[in-house]
């Protein structure tokens, strides 16, 4: 198992390098001018000032040199300062990452619970009313875009009923307690779960049906084992492997969805930061956001793969101690 872990970890570094290089090149070739956007437009600066600022920021050098210097600094733990306001990138990113991790973490746990429970209910009661309801709901979820659902929920719960806050982490001028923080979490988390759970539910339903139709499940029933054992030792562990694999594979979709939701709900996470930095061509911030997102997805994938390997006796034996 350790050997497997080391092998997989070694693969992460080239992946991150590739992501950063691609992001750098794309960003540099996109239209827009970071120096001009600092003062609101090229026409507000003299040519001499413009060149001085560009030189200070190292923007007059070839792209390859800029990338090399950026990479060298990052490897030394120096992420630079925001071109927009001079704040340390590492501080800003850390704060945003915590917010995004909270959002995706809570929503992820929600998706796992919803899809395992709904998938179990539909899979074990296939072609009965529960199954039809769950499957129809999954289809609706599959077809609903997150941003549209987010706006709908805001309209309903924040504007019409005024039960929940519609944006941000906290409401300015109101007390900041655990309860208000949770209230701010409800709508964005609900949006992610409702807009994303569909395919997960369908997958679990299918896996559960496969297990129930399997020889080993039938043999276990023929052995007189009670429901409790059939569910926890046969159905769940065997349905879990394809589910976790899919969780890993679909993580980029989920992160993308969460970024959109951050924008809809002004949730101060990586996604919102990314969007603002992209508009301002704030390349130090943008690169950090891309790299952190890439690392998040890659590490998530790695955890999923490790879990799958650990759940699979064949792989466990291959890399194990025995």
């Amino acid at each position, binding site marked *: 198992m350790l050997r497997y872990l080391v092998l997989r970890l070694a693969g992460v570094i080239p992946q991150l390098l590739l992501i950063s290089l691609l992001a750098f090149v794309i960003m540099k070739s996109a239209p827009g001018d970071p120096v001009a956007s600092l003062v609101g437009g090229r026409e507000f600066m003299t040519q001499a000032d413009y060149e001085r600022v560009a030189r200070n920021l190292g923007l007059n050098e070839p792209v390859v040199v800029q990338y090399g210097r950026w990479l060298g600094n990052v490897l030394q733990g120096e992420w630079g300062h925001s071109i927009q306001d001079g704040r340390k990138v590492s501080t800003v990113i850390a704060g945003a990452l915590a917010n995004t991790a909270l959002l995706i973490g809570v929503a992820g746990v929600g998706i796992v619970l919803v899809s395992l429970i709904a998938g179990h209910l539909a899979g074990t009661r296939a072609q009965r009313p529960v199954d039809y309801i769950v499957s129809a709901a999954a289809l609706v979820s599959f077809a609903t875009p997150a941003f549209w659902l987010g706006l709908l929920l805001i309209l309903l719960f924040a504007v019409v009923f005024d039960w929940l806050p519609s944006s941000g982490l906290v409401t300015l001028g109101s007390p900041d307690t655990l309860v208000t923080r949770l209230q701010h979490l409800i709508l964005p988390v609900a949006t992610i779960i409702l807009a994303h759970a569909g395919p997960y539910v369908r997958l679990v339903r299918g896996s559960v049906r496969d297990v129930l139709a399997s020889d*080993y499940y*039938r*043999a276990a*029933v023929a052995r*007189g*084992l009670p429901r409790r054992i059939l569910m926890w030792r046969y159905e769940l562990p065997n349905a879990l492997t394809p589910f976790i694999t899919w969780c890993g594979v679909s993580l980029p979709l989920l992160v993308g969805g969460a970024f959109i939701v951050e924008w809809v709900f002004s949730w101060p996470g990586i996604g919102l930061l990314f969007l603002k930095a992209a508009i301002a061509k704030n390349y130090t911030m943008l690169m950090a956001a891309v790299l952190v997102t890439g690392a998040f997805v890659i590490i998530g994938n790695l955890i999923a793969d490790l879990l799958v390997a650990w759940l699979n006796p*064949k792989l466990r034996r291959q890399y194990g101690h025995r």
Partner: protein
Amino acid sequence: MKKMNPLLNVKQLSVRYATGADEVRAVDEVSFSIRPGEVVGLVGESGSGKSSVAQAILGLLDQHNTTIAGRIEFDGENLFSCDESGWNAVRGRRIGMIFQSPESSFNPVATVGAQMVEALRWHFKLAKVEARQRALAALREVGMPRPEEVMHNYAFELSGGMCQRAALALVMALQPALVLADEPTASLDVLAQAELVQWLALIQKKRGFAMLVISHDLNLVARLADQVLVMHGGRLLEKGATRRVLANPQHPYTEQLLRAVPRLITADMRTHNDHSVKNGVVLP
């Protein structure tokens, strides 16, 4: 031999599957009985409804697209009136079942030992250590080499023959009064087949449980069974003592079945005769 009350009594059993608009009559008013300690062979070509009979006995048929009619009594009890906990007390513990493909009948994420211990603990309410001891004893009883090691093995780590013997041990550990064996040798190579049949015959003789052996291999049935049932298209065409049916078939279909394996049957009839006479089975 004193005539005993039947252990299993199947009366007018019919099984129909709904497949879309169509309906398959898989089993059509089949009646037979098995006495305690008796081995009954059920033969017939593929699709004749043999597995459906076995699955009906254990209540394994999916109730959604299946219609069952008739009555099955086990030890005087009507099985069709069982609720869930009633079935759980019968399945495994009083009626065991051996399936055709040994590897796929084990949970892929649990060891052989874990599955034996799990079933033993559930049915006999045993402590873990005690369940382990009984599992080991059952593996030894079926002649499993290195049983301690096999306890820690997954099914994919065992050969087909070893796997089927582990499956046999799992059934035996629960000490059922009746064993349903649905094509137990069909997926094994010839050597493993011979070995399994040998162990099956030995243990059956020693323990004296009743058995329903399903097979299209007449050779296997001739070797093990006291009585033979011949099925075709869901109907029971012929039943009787093994020797009588194989030597003197009454139905043309049975004759046809026999002609398909002439050489093997004649070779085997001799051993079967010795065996059945020794057992004191009443021959016609």
